[in-house]
């Protein structure tokens, strides 16, 4: 490893004790303050609102316990909550199994085709979830689904084979859509895992299955838990899939209760906040459970001072089935939805792919989207915002994770918890809290792009925390200790040891945040102003006006652009940090 060889000869001249402490505490203190402020604004707002009645016209808001009483005693909520839990559990399990399997094949084995797989795997994440769901309606609805039509004709069946309008269908679509979340996190974990334990097991005659379950998965346990947690929370909050696939057959979820409360006039943000407070409790429990893991010290660290060469694992004859599996997954999750999207972008109206449709194709929609009002401005703003937010979040949360994992500060679990909570705030409540905060606290950012930046950093900070935590847990503190022994300052060892070793997690988290912040709508729509439009506003606009064809064209262009960004990020990432053997 090149890092070990680099000496710290330059820092022989030790800075004074106070100088070192000051620089270190300045950075740590600033990070804690920023994260604390960002996370507490929506939290305080949410808790405050949950005790208030809605205000309208002459009727002011007053203190009440009514929202909680309503939320806890409403008998119609229970079945919704049950549906949500079933849906979220199913989705998380499916996404986790798929994501982990492919991350393992991609990172730890010599399966063919893996190079392009990493970038391709983010495609489902880029497709707006409305379009992803509609494309599955086109493929698997009992009425017009392409799969059903093909199977019906091929085998002369009387009824449809797949029914997308069911709990199973909802889990399938959402699970596939979210599998990149698990894939990115698990890839990072597999990448910074020392393979020597697996190799020893192989030498001792263990089978691939035994190695996978007894060693590999046990070592990445924190990453598995973190993935499950993110997936669970995200699918509890998800709105599109339940609305598009569950609603027609009467399956309703918890989020629709939150949505209904906000939609009323006067908008009952208080009741929505009380519902969200229930989610906060669940999430806090999950975060607490995870911080237990991180307090178990170096149990999961395999990146130590000893030689570390992440090397692929030879699958032998299993290479072929693995390759088939990868190709099958790529067709199902990436190629097919992309083709449906591409097909509809060439049409004049949304329709199922068919021979007859071929004659109608044209590229008109692309020209229309490019000339759409505000599109150029929006792309520029979104690019700046998402790259800026992702970079800021990953660096900021790296410091926070370091505090939580490496120090013995008394309330460090609280820091982890507070920084992770924005994950469960309904986007609209978060947007509203940021809006109101900076309307009254007039420091000149209201109405500028900065307020959206603040909202993005707040909203996606929890993901940075999770991605960084899982990677940080794998790095043994040996390395930093040796650096300190050789006279490196805290900032030196942070920048030259911790960050490079953290790279897999940093990069995966960065990619994830870039993609999801481009799609963020619920707080963007409240916070943007003329001149600070973002891409998600354009998407929403096209969706609302029913311009699905233009929306598909826009989706296709977005996928291509982000695909290139991810490829570039990977290339740049390869040039820094730990060289692979």
């Amino acid at each position, binding site marked *: 490893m090149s890092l070990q060889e680099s000496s710290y000869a330059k820092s022989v001249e030790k800075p004074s004790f106070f100088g070192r402490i000051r620089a270190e505490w300045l950075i740590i203190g600033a990070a804690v303050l920023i994260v604390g402020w960002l996370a507490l604004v929506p939290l305080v707002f949410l808790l405050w609102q949950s005790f208030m009645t809605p205000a*309208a*016209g002459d009727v002011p808001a007053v203190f009440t316990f009514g929202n909680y009483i309503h939320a806890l005693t409403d008998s119609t909520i229970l079945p919704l909550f049950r549906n949500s839990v079933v849906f979220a559990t199913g989705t998380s399990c499916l996404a986790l199994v798929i994501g982990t399997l492919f991350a393992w094949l991609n990172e730890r084995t010599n399966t063919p085709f893996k190079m392009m797989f990493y970038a391709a795997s983010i495609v489902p994440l880029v497709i707006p979830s409305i379009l992803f769901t*509609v494309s599955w*309606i*086109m493929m698997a*609805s009992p*009425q*017009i689904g392409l799969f059903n039509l093909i199977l019906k004709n091929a085998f002369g069946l009387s009824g449809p084979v797949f029914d997308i309008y069911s709990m199973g269908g909802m889990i399938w679509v959402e699970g596939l859509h979210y599998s990149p979340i698990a894939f990115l996190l698990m890839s990072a974990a597999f990448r910074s895992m020392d393979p020597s334990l697996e190799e020893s097991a192989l030498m001792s005659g263990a089978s691939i299955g035994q190695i996978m379950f007894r060693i590999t998965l046990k070592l990445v346990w924190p990453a598995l838990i973190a993935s499950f947690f993110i997936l669970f929370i995200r699918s509890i909050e998800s709105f599109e899939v339940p*609305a*598009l696939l569950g*609603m*027609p057959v*009467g399956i309703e979820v918890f989020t629709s209760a939150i949505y*209904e409360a906000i*939609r*009323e*006039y*006067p*908008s009952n943000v208080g009741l929505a906040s009380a519902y969200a407070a229930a989610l906060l409790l669940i999430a806090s429990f999950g975060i607490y459970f995870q911080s237990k893991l991180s307090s178990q010290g170096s149990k999961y660290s395999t990146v130590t001072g000893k030689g570390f060469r992440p090397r692929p694992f030879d699958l032998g004859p299993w290479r072929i089935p693995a390759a088939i599996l990868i190709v099958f997954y790529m067709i199902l999750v990436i190629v097919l939805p992309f083709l449906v999207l591409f097909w509809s972008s060439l049409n*004049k*109206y*949304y*329709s*199922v792919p068919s021979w007859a449709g071929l004659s*109608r194709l044209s590229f008109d929609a692309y020209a229309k989207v490019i000339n*759409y*009002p*505000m599109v150029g401005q929006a792309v520029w703003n979104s690019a700046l915002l998402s790259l800026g937010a992702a970079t800021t979040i990953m660096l900021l949360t790296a410091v926070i994770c370091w505090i939580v994992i490496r120090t013995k500060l008394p309330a460090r679990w609280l820091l982890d918890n507070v920084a992770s909570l924005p994950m469960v705030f309904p986007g609209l409540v978060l947007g*509203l809290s940021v*809006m*109101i905060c900076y*309307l*009254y*606290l*007039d420091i000149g950012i*209201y*109405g500028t792009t900065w307020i959206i930046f603040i909202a993005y950093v707040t909203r996606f900070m929890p993901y940075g925390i999770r991605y960084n935590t899982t990677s940080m847990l794998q790095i043994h503190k040996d390395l930093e200790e040796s650096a300190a022994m050789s006279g490196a300052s805290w900032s030196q060892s942070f920048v030259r040891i911790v960050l490079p070793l953290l790279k897999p997690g940093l990069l995966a988290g960065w990619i994830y945040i870039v993609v999801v912040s481009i799609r963020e709508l619920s707080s963007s*729509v*409240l916070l943007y*102003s*003329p001149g600070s439009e973002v891409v998600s*506003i354009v998407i929403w*606009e096209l*969706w*609302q*006006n*029913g311009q*699905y064809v233009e929306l598909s064209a826009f989706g296709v262009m977005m996928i291509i652009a982000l695909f290139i960004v991810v490829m570039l990020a990977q290339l740049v990432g390869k040039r820094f940090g730990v060289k692979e053997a």
Partner: protein
Amino acid sequence: MRNTLKSLKTFALAGAVGALLAGSAVAQSIDEISKYSGADRLEKLAAAAKTEGGLTLYTATPVEDVTAMTDAFTKKYGIKVTVWRGSSEDVLRRAVTEIKAGRYDADVIETNGPELEALHREKILQPIASPVTPDIFPGAVPEHKEWVGSRLNIITAAYNTNLVAEKDVPKGWNDLLDPKWKGKVGLEAEAYDWLATVNASFPGGEKEGIDFFAKLAKINGISLRKGHTLLTNLTASGEVPLALTTYLYKVDQMNKDGAPIKVLQLGPSVARINGLGVAKTAKHPNAAILFQDFTLTEGQKILVERGFTPTNVKIAPLPKDLNVKVVDGAAMLDKLAQWRETFEKTVK
């Protein structure tokens, strides 16, 4: 925290009042401007608007349509319009939150009837005496004149022409009870106001309407879809052979593009109003009032060109065969919960 907020608010308010007082030395107050009805009203407005230089519009109208309108306005008067776009609820939320916090960016607010009525209740809009008002479709101007409807969003049934043969097209509500429609009828999932309005239009009154839809849901099932445009697109693609609630202009437009979708008259055409009002706190009151007038007069022709149904019946008379029932915005605010309950009991 609270005190700081309060003092900040007072501070902002004092600043605003100060600015208003300083301004009134040269310009008229919005009350005076909005009440003036002399023959030279338009000229005076245009001249004063020019010195104001521009205006900000918060709107829920699709961006291409609103751009057509603002471009024509700028071309005529040389006044630049800054547009903020959001859903009808976002427009309401943003305008109320900002104005209560003392930030007076919005001059004109354009959104749906219920949201405009909510703005009226929040005491945000300025009543305006305009000579155009008498020409407007009667259901589109509220008593208080704080906002005026500029177009009707007509909701109609539509069917897929590939899947529904000409002879099978239903002529009236009862035809839908035929078992051949099983699993083929779709409805927007939040069409609470539509159902209430349609129910009331049944000859035997509301009860008959509720009974009919309950029966339909029981015999053939009604598939609920979120969003009118989704439902319209699903009808064109064949997923929903017959939809009860689609936007008339959207169906016409898709039909023109060659999609196999056609409008169907079943019962009354329920119309949601879309209109605009001027904020009391407008920084550009003359330009704002001028823009409202423009939308209700010359702008109406632009709306027709873009497939909308304008409200100025003197300029664009409503089609004769159209039995339009306008949704009452105020009733929508007060009865939403009740309507929703009826909806859920009846069609789910």
